[in-house]
């Protein structure tokens, strides 16, 4: 093989190349983000951005300033002058009117400049800004993502403390918590990051000179913030983070150039991180640590929260915290999941193995008690092949200690259970007292054990534990000598009670978890059954209305929520199907539909909306939107959300199926009617034309017979011939019109010079043109036109016929053609009386004859046919009067055809390759 063979480790990996190509394609459609990145406020990011913008504007890039705060700095304001500003949107908020960045204006600006040579650019200060409540996205960076997705380039500014993964660290350094953060994925995905740097001393000098803007309410905090130590640390963080990015770029470059210089295979190890989030606070710290680890080693990562039955019994707050941590993980680029199960370790290990994750990240709190250690240890025991990394969590975090929720799950107290447990124990004591003489102490103990089992079955673990202790206490107090005393005379009884307590606790524990599992299984079974029932119902539907009904019933039964099913109507607008009772904000629904993402309550987009909007994604396309309006406030649980997603996809598939049933039915009808029309047309054309053809021929033949006809006889024969010909033309026109009207005419378009069509039209009109001289003036630079020669000849013939018909004999007809921009204009001028003024358009109507009652033959289909043919060629035709010095000098018909993309090659180069035939 002559091709050079690279050593195996230096050969570019085809998968990687493909991935790279796909990324580049994606980026080509996507806008590019450029971030002006600084260590703190006051380093001059906005100034740098605006200076760069002026240079770019001079290069002809269409740009607009979405929102830039000058904070009253004259230098910045001077730079801003002369740059086009987008209008701001006034949003009322708590009695004030806030002027905010208008996303829709920016999108409109982008759309207006989308086709230019340079992609449009929008400048937007402060990437980390939080939008006014009620805006489309809660965060400005989400606005930016939408702009980028629409192919608009964005320049923005941000400080290092706003970077999500550095949030903890910056908080630790400066002692100030920043609430407004930007996910690292956005920062890493940015096309360019420009580091705007200013040494701390100079910054402090600027601060002292009052050149740095600080909001009034933050002056006190700022005093602490702008300390030299802080500034040095922040600068180092910013420089290092930028350096990390450059490093990654370097690796990409090396990989793409395939120099093989990297000894460390960056993507070859497919190991990845799994962040295990527990209930309660602290989850976010685990997530941030995992995100940092993943980013620094360039790993993919997952975050999970294991949903156990005990956690479901626990307070909503702890659970909510875990779900918030999961959402944060998602923003930071993790794949998230909430697998369910009773054994946390088992679920975690199974998840990690299924997804090939080899490093687990857990939280660790100081002051561990013995049993907590065992959790980490047990996990480590089960995963000898995995790394277990521990993240220290602060001790003071309340909301109950970290793993206890998983192990005990007794945080929520159900008083009813305890009351019943106490009462049952009391009744059992009464019963045992009455039977005291009959029963041995061991049997009484048995009765109490029975009680514990019963309580565990009915009320779970906590009441069962109480019952166990009460049972032991009552047995001791009432039935063990000395009676009515907690003292025990015989040491034997101590063993009895110890065993009784142990057995009761174990049985209670087992029974309770069994019951929880049975409940969970029952719940799952019920849900699956519902889904199964719904899908069975859906499979029988034939109308979209039935689907809506089934959907509404299911959601009411399963979530006690109102709902609405919105589908695309005829005018491409979403409309609710009958049976919708939810209060739907159509703007949110439309957003959800056009983006194909969930929106509304519980999502990132327009969370203030009362409904959750789910796109109905079917295999072929989006079918509509499912809006669900839960009755009370609060987020949907992950399993409810999952159930809704499943429900949405079932609905989408059903809607798609119904859509295709309709399409199939319509096309059957269409094919049938088309067949009928064609057979009718061809039957008519055959049956009308054949006798006419005979008539024309026979009348003509009369003249050829011997003996020759006398004068009047020949005249009659000629008249028959003419009438038959005219009749035949009429039939042709009617049939042509019918064919053109049906829209099914197949154009046989070929590239050809206009000259040839004009020539053949003139040849066809030769007999009638004897009375009218024709002047042809075609521009020399006419391109080839993409025409159906036969049909286009009809257009010219009809126009020429009209010109001879409606103008006096001896007047001239002029045919001209020239190129104007991207069109070719063909004109046919006559020197007759012109078109009836004001009716220039109506002459193109069917059965229109220029408004004149004449004896001229024809039914007025000629121009209608012309228009239909020209329109089939994507062209336009119109008529007007030529006016010179206030007098009409004749009519003019103008045909405007698109120039198209004619082939450049005319075959001149090809003949040389052929053998010369002329010598043979």
């Amino acid at each position, binding site marked *: 093989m002559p091709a050079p063979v690279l050593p195996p480790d230096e050969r570019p990996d085809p998968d990687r190349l493909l991935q790279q190509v796909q990324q580049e394609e994606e980026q080509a459609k996507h806008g590019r983000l450029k971030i002006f990145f600084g260590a703190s406020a006051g380093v001059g990011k906005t100034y740098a951005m605006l200076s760069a913008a002026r240079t770019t504007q001079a290069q002809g890039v269409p740009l607009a300033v979405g929102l830039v705060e000058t904070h009253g700095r004259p230098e910045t304001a001077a730079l801003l002058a002369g740059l086009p500003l987008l209008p701001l949107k006034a949003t009322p908020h708590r009695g004030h009117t806030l002027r905010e960045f208008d996303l829709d204006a920016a999108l409109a600006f982008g759309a207006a400049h989308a086709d230019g040579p340079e992609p449009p650019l929008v400048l937007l200060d402060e990437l980390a800004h939080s939008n006014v409540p009620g805006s489309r996205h809660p965060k400005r960076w989400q606005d930016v993502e939408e702009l980028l997705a629409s192919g608009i380039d964005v320049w923005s500014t941000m400080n290092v403390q706003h970077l999500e993964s550095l949030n903890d660290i910056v908080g630790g350094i400066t002692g100030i918590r920043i609430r407004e953060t930007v996910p690292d994925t956005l920062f890493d995905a940015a096309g360019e990051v420009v580091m705007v740097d200013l040494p701390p001393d100079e910054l402090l000098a600027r601060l002292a000179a009052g050149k740095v803007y600080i909001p009034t309410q933050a002056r006190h905090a700022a005093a602490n913030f702008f300390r030299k130590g802080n500034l040095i640390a922040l600068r180092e963080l910013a420089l290092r983070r930028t350096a990390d990015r450059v490093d990654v770029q370097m690796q990409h470059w090396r990989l793409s150039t395939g120099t093989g210089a990297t000894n460390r295979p960056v993507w070859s190890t497919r190991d990845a991180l799994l962040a295990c989030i527990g209930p309660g606070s602290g989850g976010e710290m685990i997530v941030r640590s995992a995100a940092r680890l993943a980013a620094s080693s360039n790993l993919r990562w997952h975050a999970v929260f294991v949903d156990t039955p005990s956690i479901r019994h626990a307070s909503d707050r702890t659970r909510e915290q875990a779900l918030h941590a999961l959402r944060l993980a998602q923003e930071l680029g993790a794949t998230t999941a909430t697998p369910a199960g009773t054994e946390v370790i088992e679920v975690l290990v199974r998840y990690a193995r299924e997804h090939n994750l080899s490093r687990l990240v857990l939280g660790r709190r100081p002051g561990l008690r013995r049993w907590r250690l065992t959790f980490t240890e047990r996990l480590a025991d089960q995963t000898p092949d995995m790394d277990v990394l521990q993240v220290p969590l602060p001790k003071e975090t309340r909301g109950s200690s970290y793993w206890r929720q998983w192990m005990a799950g007794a945080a929520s107290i159900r008083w009813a259970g305890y009351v019943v447990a106490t009462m049952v124990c009391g009744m059992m004591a009464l019963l045992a007292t009455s039977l005291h003489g009959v029963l041995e102490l061991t049997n009484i103990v048995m009765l109490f054990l029975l009680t514990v089992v019963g309580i565990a079955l009915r009320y779970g673990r906590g009441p069962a534990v109480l019952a166990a202790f009460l049972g032991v206490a009552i047995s001791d107090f009432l039935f063990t000598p000395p009676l009515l005393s907690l003292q025990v005379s015989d040491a034997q009884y101590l063993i009895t009670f110890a065993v009784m307590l142990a057995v009761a606790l174990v049985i209670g524990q087992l029974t309770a978890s069994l019951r929880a599992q049975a409940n969970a299984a029952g719940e799952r079974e019920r849900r699956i059954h519902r889904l199964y029932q719904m899908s069975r119902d859906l499979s029988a539907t034939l109308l979209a209305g039935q689907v809506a009904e089934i959907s509404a019933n299911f959601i009411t039964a399963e979530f006690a929520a109102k709902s609405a099913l919105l589908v695309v109507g005829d005018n491409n607008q979403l409309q609710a199907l009958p049976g919708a009772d939810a209060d739907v904000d159509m703007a949110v629904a439309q957003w959800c539909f056009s983006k194909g993402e969930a929106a509304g309550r519980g999502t990132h987009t327009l969370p203030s909306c009362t409904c959750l909007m789910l796109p109905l994604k079917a295999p072929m396309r989006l079918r509509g939107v499912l809006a669900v309006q839960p009755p009370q406030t609060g987020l949907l649980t992950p399993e409810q959300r999952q159930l809704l997603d499943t429900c949405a996809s079932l609905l989408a598939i059903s809607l798609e199926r119904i859509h295709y049933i309709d399409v199939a039915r319509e096309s059957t009808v269409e094919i049938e009617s088309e067949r009928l029309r064609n057979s009718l047309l061809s039957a008519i*054309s*055959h049956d009308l*034309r*054949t*006798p*006419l*053809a*005979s*008539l*024309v*021929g*026979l009348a*003509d*033949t009369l*003249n*050829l*017979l*011997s003996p020759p006809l006398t004068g009047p006889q020949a005249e009659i024969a000629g008249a028959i*011939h003419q009438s*038959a*010909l005219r009749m*035949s033309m009429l039939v*042709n026109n009617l049939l*042509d019109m019918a*064919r053109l009207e049906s829209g099914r005419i197949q154009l*046989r378009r*070929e*590239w*050809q*010079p206009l*000259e*040839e*069509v*004009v*020539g*053949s039209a*003139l*040849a*066809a009109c030769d007999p009638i043109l004897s009375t009218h001289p024709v002047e*042809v003036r*075609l521009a020399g630079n006419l391109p*080839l036109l993409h025409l*159906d*020669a*036969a049909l286009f*000849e009809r257009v010219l013939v009809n126009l020429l016929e009209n010109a001879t018909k409606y103008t006096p004999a001896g007047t001239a007809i002029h045919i001209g053609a020239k190129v104007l921009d991207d069109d070719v204009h063909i004109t046919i001028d006559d020197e007759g009386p012109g078109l009836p003024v004001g009716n220039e358009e109506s002459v193109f109507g069917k059965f229109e004859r220029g408004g004149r009652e004449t004896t001229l033959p024809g039914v007025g289909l000629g121009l209608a046919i012309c228009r239909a043919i020209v329109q089939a060629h994507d062209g336009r035709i119109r008529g007007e009067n030529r006016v010179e010095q206030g007098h009409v000098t004749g009519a003019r018909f103008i045909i405007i055809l698109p120039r198209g993309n*004619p*082939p450049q*090659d*005319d*075959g*001149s180069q*090809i*003949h*040389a*390759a*052929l053998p010369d*035939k*002329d010598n043979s």
Partner: protein
Amino acid sequence: MNEVRILIIEDEADIRRFIRLALASEGYEVFEAATLQRGLIEAGTRRPDILVLDLGMPDGDGVDLIRDLRTWSAMPVIVLSARSHEADKITALDTGADDYLVKPFGAGELLARVRAQLRRQHIRIQPGESPVTFGDISIDLARRSVCRAGEVLHLTPIEYRLLTHLISHPECVLTHRQLLHAVWGPGHMEDTHYVRVHMANLRKKIETDPSRPRHLLTETGIGYRFCGL
């Protein structure tokens, strides 16, 4: 007496009748067939000089008959067809038909076409013989030169080949595909604009009024016909 024999294959009795009357009035001997099957037998037994064939026959496709016929005969074939059936005409011409007439047509038109086909049979164009002349153009095939009123015309090799191919089939309709095949070879059968562009250039050199040609005639949507020899 060497009488000219013409066979008509046409299913409509009236049209057949008028064609027969018209042709008979010129003194031709006329045979008729109402079906393709009958027509093929007549063509084989009568050995006509010209065949007039309707493409739309009830018992089959006229094109099939032309294909059969061309395996054993070179007799001129004039096909009759309805308007707006360009594709049928092109197929018939590509298969071997020489000319076509669109219904309705007059007796005069038919007779003119028949005469042209008969005349063509007597024209033999061979290099080395006396120059071929039409109008004020004369072509010397041996020296490969084209003159107009005594003045030498400069034709490109493609134009020359196009012109000689056309004049060697006088009065016949040549489709775009046939010309493409003859001049550019079988690899360019779909590039019909090649023919059109060079034909336009050729007309500018040959015709006195290129927009109203007299020798290189356009058969709209189908091809070209050379006449005037």
